[in-house]
């Protein structure tokens, strides 16, 4: 048995306990402890790989390479943030519109989701990648409808159907890529990413291009790229806060990593122009469109969800320009910052009983720690210094300008500026506005702690970015296609 499989142990135990124990108190404790242990286990497994250790294959279709190790580490941090927040928030599940039963279900489903998301990151074979991706959709759909409101049911339905169709297109893309390798005399190995990368130059070009378009549509739906992002704001805003943390911090990365790996095949084929010619402009348009939509938001969670759309656009540009360090750094920055933002939205909902921007006001006066954390999270999400997103966005702009992609740079600058102003204006009103009258929920400072830890982590990551670190990242994560 491979040691990478040990990463399934903690989530499986948490899931089993969530099913077995009737008492939410025990499940909360086990979920929090299990998720922290999972971070330790992931560090033990992934850090040696990132240090240049052997990249081991396991279960035939999976491999722990640099990219996989990096994103599994992100997944575990996000999972720990979500589970500890849930454990602290669900003291009294009715406060957050859940019951004992749905609270337990959240812990169980989140743990199963972590396994599916890790499988996506490790997949070395396009078939396994697809199966894991669909599995991640299936376990997250029930999370969205846990609160049981009409809105949440509609959001879950939309998510299931739109992502279902999206992923079906990705399956068509997989089949087409396989068909494009027919004349090489391929055996069953023609779904292996490494094999396809090695034979990329001799793939049938028209089929390769068609398959890439379907991949971008399919996995792009999952990642939430404009114009196939419609499910994302609904799902993120209707899920319970810890669910939103996982959706935004871990699920969206799955789609982006899939695109990164497929981009690794296209990069060395003779259809290379599709990366800067199709994916990067799509990302830039996503950033601009999300920025414009951020202006008119009326709901704190929807606002953060649109900011996720924007950040996925930035990641798509990084994938299109094939820059490993920027891609990895921005994914880390976004996942940590957005996880903290969504877990804080859970604290706001619990304390103020609403997340509507028009009703929220004066958070700072009522609860200073929550107010400060919310401001810091907003800054981290939007890429203010010293947070990691500042460095990655700056590097991305520099990279695009170096490549003379003028329109992409213009769209990125405009989109980033608009969204920065929009989010800070909305958040400023929420945090500093006149004290609101409708203070309902129970007050407690503890649930803010995981979010603050995540914010500090992204600040440290931002301060740690130096040219030598970027070079090291480049070296370790170089190959998108598994070698």
């Amino acid at each position, binding site marked *: 048995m491979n040691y990478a499989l040990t990463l399934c142990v903690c989530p499986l135990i948490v899931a089993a306990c969530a099913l077995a124990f009737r008492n939410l108190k025990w499940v909360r404790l086990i979920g929090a402890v299990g998720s922290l242990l999972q971070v330790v286990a992931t560090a033990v497994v992934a850090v040696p790989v990132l240090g240049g250790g052997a990249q081991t294959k396991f279960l035939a279709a999976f491999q722990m390479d640099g990219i996989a190790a990096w994103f599994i580490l992100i997944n575990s941090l996000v999972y720990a943030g979500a589970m500890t927040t849930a454990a602290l928030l669900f003291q009294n599940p009715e406060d957050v519109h859940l019951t004992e039963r749905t609270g337990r279900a959240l812990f169980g489903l989140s743990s199963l989701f972590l396994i599916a998301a890790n499988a996506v990151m490790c997949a070395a074979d396009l078939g396994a990648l697809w199966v894991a991706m669909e599995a991640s959709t299936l376990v997250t759909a029930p999370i969205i409808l846990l609160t049981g409101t009409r809105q949440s049911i509609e959001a879950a339905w939309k998510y299931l159907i739109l992502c279902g169709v999206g992923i*079906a297109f990705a399956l068509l893309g997989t089949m087409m890529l396989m068909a494009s390798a027919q004349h090489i005399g391929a055996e069953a190995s023609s779904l292996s990413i490494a094999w396809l990368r090695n034979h990329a130059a001799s793939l049938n070009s028209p089929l390769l291009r068609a398959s890439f378009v379907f991949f971008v549509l399919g996995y792009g739906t999952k990642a939430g790229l404009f114009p196939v992002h419609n499910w994302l704001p609904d799902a993120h805003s209707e899920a319970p806060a810890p669910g939103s943390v996982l959706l935004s911090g871990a699920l969206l990365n799955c789609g982006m990593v899939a695109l990164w790996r497929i981009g690794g095949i296209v990069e060395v084929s003779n259809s290379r122009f599709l990366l800067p010619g199709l994916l990067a402009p799509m990302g830039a348009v996503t950033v601009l469109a999300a920025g414009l939509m951020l202006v008119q938001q009326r709901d704190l969670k929807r606002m953060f969800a649109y900011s996720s759309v924007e950040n996925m656009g930035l990641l798509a540009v990084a994938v299109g320009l094939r820059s490993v360090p920027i891609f990895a750094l921005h994914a880390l920055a976004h996942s940590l910052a957005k996880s903290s933002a969504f877990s804080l939205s859970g604290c706001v909902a619990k304390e103020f009983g609403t997340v509507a921007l028009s009703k929220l006001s004066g958070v700072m006066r009522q609860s200073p720690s929550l107010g400060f954390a919310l401001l810091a999270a907003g800054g981290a999400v939007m890429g203010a210094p010293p947070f990691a997103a500042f460095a990655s966005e700056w590097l991305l702009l520099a990279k695009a300008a170096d490549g003379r992609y003028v329109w992409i740079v213009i769209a990125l600058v405009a989109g980033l500026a608009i969204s920065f102003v929009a989010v800070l204006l909305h958040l400023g009103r929420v945090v500093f506005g006149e004290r609101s009258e409708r203070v309902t929920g129970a007050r407690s400072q503890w649930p803010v702690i995981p979010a603050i830890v995540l914010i500090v982590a992204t600040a440290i990551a931002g301060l740690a970015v130096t040219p030598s670190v970027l070079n090291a990242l480049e070296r370790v994560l170089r190959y998108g296609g598994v070698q």
Partner: protein
Amino acid sequence: MTTNQDLIGIATMAALWMLGITRVRSMLWGLAVLGGALGALPLFGGISQGHGGEVLLGVVVITVKAVAVPIFLNWNAARLQMTRDRTVGIGPGAAMLVGATLVVLCYFHGNRFAAVGASAGDAGFSIAIIAIGLTIMMTRRLAVGLIIGFLVLDNGIFVYGFTQTPGMPFIVELGVLFDLFLGVLLAGFVLFRIRRSFEHLDVSEMRELRG
């Protein structure tokens, strides 16, 4: 080879027929025929070439796509008292005409999607089935119509896979089918929730969320 083309012809006809009907049970019969023809592709291919794996795959595909899924959806529709779907946008006749046009167009442009050495006509028909599935999804009001349209689309992708590629590894194929079946079960479960909270199953009337 001729059996293959007969089967693909049956699958295309079934998809086209489903465009023109609105009775849920008839649509499920169409889905079963489509799934059966699809499963028969690897089944007959495996029998004539003596590949045990392909025969097994064909049996599994038929069990899931032609038997289990339609029976489950039929049970679901009966429980939720959905007997007749309505169309939105264009009527069934016009939709069928659109479908027929799609089939002709895709047939003549099939070589754009065909693998080297594979039949261009087969590729065209499979793309046509995918397009018909999308058309069904776009023109139905009831949630179950959307699921059926999605399944037609998915079957078209399988037809493409069976005719243009040597097939995915068996274990991956099983994973794909398993995921698909779970997805249908989950969608059926969500249908019950929709009925309970909205008191109707008309997805074009679901407007709680705004952009």
